[in-house]
């Protein structure tokens, strides 16, 4: 009974949200003006700590950007690398190298911000690649003075294994949802993979949080929103990132993200249920808390039932011994019909159809063709389960005061 109620709450939330976003696609036209002739001076900051593997590719893509060279400055801030990162950077003539001894990505970025004298400042992770036209497209959205930051669409670079392919779908849908959030002005993330900020605003809000913040990019976004600046996404600005390739790397990344989200949500709790922040305060931010709570409760219930089911089945099989083969018969059609529960089945089917539709629109949005379709099964049925586990562990670590580290 209790699991059915939880299941219904999850389905209800799923249908409500999917229906909300689908209607936003059709009924909200809040197109932000784009000025393609606006080409201000830009500094791109690349914080680096032992990035010898990928930094050359990142710098190559930055130097190939379709942007007036006299208006573009690229700065790498070395954060105490012990590998060949510094040597590699020194090989690039058009790149300025700074050193920040104080550990932490936020410290490195702040060093760069202090050096930045251009109108806009972009932050780029040292393992990312940007497309040629990305920066030009992003700066065109800074025509309005209340725009604090513009983010890009992030894609997974050449996904190979199952985990990367699942993330490939996740990033596509995330980009689309961010676009919709941007449309209704509730976007509150500025990822490290090429986000462009208004330099004056970055300095005004105090730069990145150096106080051991696990997700400094989320913190700065919330900080901008706290000061009533908009965060937008430019769908025509495509960037690429390398996702975690192993289960444990993925686990560490997600737990870090969620711990950062918990920490920063507490830090900016005044924005929750605050109508001064429009839909962001009254809908989007509270939704995070509600969905995560429901997700964790669902996970615990499902985990209990799976355990109970497996225990009963295994125990039965052990007791059956030679009688085991008598169980290998399929249920009759009548039995299947008897087991159907429309109250659960219909919401699940509807939310699944809506999910697939949103995924289809997401592919259209970033002009990405469908690939690795069988992986969708894992995306829809396994990833939420894993996400609940990540959340659960992140909460445990935050509650126990475990040390925050990357």
């Amino acid at each position: 009974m209790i699991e059915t109620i939880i299941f219904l709450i999850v389905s209800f939330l799923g249908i409500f949200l999917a229906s909300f976003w689908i209607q936003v696609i059709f009924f909200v036209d809040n197109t932000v003006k784009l000025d393609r002739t606006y080409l201000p001076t830009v500094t791109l900051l690349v914080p680096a700590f032992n990035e010898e593997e990928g930094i050359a590719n990142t710098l190559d893509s930055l130097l190939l950007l379709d942007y007036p060279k006299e208006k573009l400055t690229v700065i790498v801030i070395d954060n105490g690398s012990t590998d060949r990162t510094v040597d590699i950077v020194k090989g690039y003539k058009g790149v300025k190298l700074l050193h920040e001894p104080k550990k932490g990505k936020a410290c490195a970025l702040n060093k760069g911000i202090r050096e930045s004298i251009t109108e806009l400042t972009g932050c780029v992770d040292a393992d990312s690649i940007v497309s040629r036209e990305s920066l030009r497209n992003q700066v065109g959205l800074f025509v309005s003075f209340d725009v604090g930051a513009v983010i890009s669409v992030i894609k997974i670079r050449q996904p190979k294994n199952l985990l990367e392919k699942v993330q490939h779908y996740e990033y596509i849908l995330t980009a689309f949802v961010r676009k919709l959030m941007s449309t209704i002005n509730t976007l509150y993330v500025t990822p490290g993979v090429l986000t462009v900020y208004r330099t004056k605003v970055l300095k005004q809000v105090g730069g990145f949080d150096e106080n051991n913040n696990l997700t400094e990019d989320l913190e700065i976004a919330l900080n901008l929103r706290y000061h009533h600046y908009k965060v937008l996404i430019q769908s025509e600005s495509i960037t690429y990132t390398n996702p975690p390739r192993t289960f444990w790397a993925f686990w560490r990344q997600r737990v870090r993200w969620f711990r950062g989200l918990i920490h920063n949500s507490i830090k900016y709790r005044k924005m929750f249920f605050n109508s001064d922040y429009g839909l962001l305060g009254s809908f989007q931010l509270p939704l995070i808390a509600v969905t995560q709570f429901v997700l964790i409760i669902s996970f615990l219930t499902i985990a209990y039932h799976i355990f109970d089911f497996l225990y009963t089945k295994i125990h039965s099989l052990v007791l059956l011994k030679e009688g085991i083969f008598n169980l290998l018969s399929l249920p009759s059609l009548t039995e299947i019909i008897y087991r159907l529960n429309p109250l659960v089945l219909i919401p699940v089917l509807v939310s699944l159809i809506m999910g697939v539709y949103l995924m289809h629109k997401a592919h259209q949005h970033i002009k990405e063709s469908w690939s690795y379709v069988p992986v969708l099964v894992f995306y829809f049925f396994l990833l939420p389960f894993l996400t609940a586990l990540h959340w659960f562990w992140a909460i445990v670590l935050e509650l126990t005061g475990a040390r925050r580290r990357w």
Partner: protein
Amino acid sequence: MVERTLRNILLSSLVIACLVFVAGILLGISLNDFKNQDAFDSLKLVDLNAESYLIEREFISTYNVSYTEEQACDTLRNRFYSLSDELNEIRHLLVSFEKDQNFENKEYDLLVREYFLTEIQVYLLLENFRSGCDDSINTLVFFYGLEGNSEQQGVIIDALFKERGDIFVITLKKDYNDGVDTLGAKDPLFDLFEDHFTIGQTPTLIVNGEKYEGLINYPTLNELVGEKI
């Protein structure tokens, strides 16, 4: 303007989500009606077959025109196998039905009462048959509960039933009357039946009249039931 549109969207999303759930509830009610009706029909068939058995027995004992005693017993035994299969099928349907019962379903409670009564009725007929024909149809009465190892025991009995085909199984929920509130779903006969066997725990099995408490694995149960006919 955009704020107003968004407010409308939020509201309509809420309405859509509610509508989907109402659709689910309505379809669920219709499907439950279908299941109830279907199960009642199946039970009615068992009732008819039981009645037919009684008449057949009466007919044989009254006229005994061409049957030897052995032939008569064979005919009646086949009746029991048939009844046993039908009850087994209904039992599976009811278990499937019960697993997805989310909310109160009075018809289902009445259905279960009807089923248990039919089982006991057929069991009594079988006891009479056994004494009359000195027959070796194996009977297995399974008292189950929601806690403990009843589910595992059910799986074992199912497997044995499929393997042998010569067992007449009836299943009864221990303390059934205490667990239902639906008017008309309780039956004093269930308590009487339970008291007769002095059932203390679940699972408890009555194999050919002998009581065994606790979980019994497949080989042991197979041995207890005796040689296959």
